[in-house]
């Protein structure tokens, strides 16, 4: 068995050598496909990363009835905090709210006119809980839950921002899945053609093998190796190129679009490629396997 596997590997590499031009064309196409896939992945992953970062700034503010005690407010905060869609919560007491107000509107420390109010806080009923979402698509669900809690008077939230993030993120996801599917089909078709050429070139050899009593595995093995090797090489090239390009592009963008630095927070190169490398190689191998297997099933049977 091991001998036959080595035979298949050896013959597979020989096939690639014999079919040099077509193999190169297939490698080139898969490289192009997976390069585009890689670029898309980098864009989508970074966009989602940025959306996620932005989402953490999208908050829901919970206000309480006048009769709600601080203990009850803290209990409500605890109830909200344990929910799945919630990333974090901050309790802002009435005193803290007053301090924040003063900070926001009288930053120069000109508190003279307000000093008298410190003892009679005008925001006494303005204690609140700031809720930050881990999943903005569930904001409506969360708001309805909070509104149902006893002691809550009002819930403020920005529906438009949450919905826009969710919808845009979903759109990008659909578009990328569509493009990737088309590219995968093109690549499978090309591999299938390359293997078909190999089969045509070796038609006589395959016929002889059949008469001698070769099994399907023995006849098909070299072609599967050929297809999968082409897929693997075709996927390794774009991964290497993108790995080298990614830091350069990030540096370029940060340097030339410094005005957007607060919005553009890029993922670490290792975080991107720890996922992109195995996915690309698996797609390359998969495309190679499916492309060659489909052709072999149709055209090579003992």
């Amino acid at each position, binding site marked *: *068995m091991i*001998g*036959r596997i080595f*035979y298949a590997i050896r013959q597979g590499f020989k096939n690639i050598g014999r079919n040099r031009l077509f193999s190169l064309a297939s490698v080139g196409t898969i490289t192009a496909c997976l390069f585009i896939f890689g670029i898309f992945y980098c864009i989508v992953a970074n966009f989602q990363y940025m959306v996620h970062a932005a989402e953490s700034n999208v908050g829901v503010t919970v206000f309480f009835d006048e009769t709600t005690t601080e203990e009850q407010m803290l209990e409500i905060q605890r109830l909200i905090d344990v929910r799945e869609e919630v990333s974090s919560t901050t309790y802002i007491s009435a005193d803290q709210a007053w301090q924040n107000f003063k900070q926001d509107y009288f930053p120069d420390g000109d508190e003279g006119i307000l000093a008298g109010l410190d003892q009679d806080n005008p925001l006494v009923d303005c204690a609140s809980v700031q809720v930050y979402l881990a999943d903005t698509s569930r904001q409506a669900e969360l708001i309805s839950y909070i509104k149902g809690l006893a002691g809550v008077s009002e819930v403020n939230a920005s529906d438009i921002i949450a919905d826009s993030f969710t919808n845009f993120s979903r759109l990008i996801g659909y578009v990328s899945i569509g493009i990737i599917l088309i590219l995968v089909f093109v690549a499978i078709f090309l591999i299938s053609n390359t293997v078909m050429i190999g089969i045509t070139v070796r038609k*006589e*050899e395959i*016929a*002889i*093998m*059949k*008469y*001698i*009593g*070769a*099994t*399907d595995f*023995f006849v098909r093995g070299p072609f599967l190796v050929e297809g999968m090797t082409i897929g693997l090489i075709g996927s390794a090239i774009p991964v290497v190129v993108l790995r080298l390009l990614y830091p350069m592009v990030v540096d370029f963008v940060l340097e030339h679009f410094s005005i957007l630095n607060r919005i553009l927070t890029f993922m670490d190169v290792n975080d991107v490629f720890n996922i992109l490398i195995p996915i690309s190689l698996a797609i390359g191998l998969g495309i190679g396997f499916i492309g060659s297997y489909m052709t072999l099933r149709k055209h090579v*049977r*003992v």
Partner: protein
Amino acid sequence: MIVLDNVCKTYSTGVSALNGVNLRIRKGEFVFIVGSSGSGKTTLFKLLLKELEPTSGKIYINSQNIGRLRRRKIPKMRRGIGVVFQDFRLLKDRNVYENIAFAQRVIGKPAKVIKETVPQMLTLVGLADKAESMPNELSGGEQQRVSLARALVNNPPVLLADEPTGNLDPANAWEIMKLLEDINKRGTTVVVVTHNRDIVERMQKRVITIDKGVVVSDEKGGITNDW
């Protein structure tokens, strides 16, 4: 050894190639199957290799009904049948030794066995000094000998030859026939499909004549009907 029981073969085009063929070839026999072009000889050849399925009837090889054979068992069945073709079907990019060794590699024979048996086969077919030659450096007769060596290297009990002398001059054709006779004497059942009337008459073996898909005669001693 080989039994055909009322075998019919009609192609999807509606052409009836074989029509109720009954045959019995015993172990160790040397049989010619003759007939004009389109008589059904090649169809019979392909049915024996299970390259085609009969429309009806049963085919037994070594007491095994090959019609009931599962697809994955076909390779093993074929290993029991050596095949020789008119056009030799040698791998042109490999030398004589590699062409013969190929038949053993395909069925997973260890390298040690290959090294032992290939030279033995080359000696049997009289090409011991041509191991390194490429097929295009050999004469037609020599190429057919290589083809024979390849067919026999796995020691099959049956040898099927489809027009083995079709591309050869009379002298080479006769040599190949004598070689087939030698192989038969060693115990291999030999079935030769041929057009070559001259050879059939000289060999004085059993002759089965097929015409329009029907066995019209089956006689011993090289006596042949018109075909």
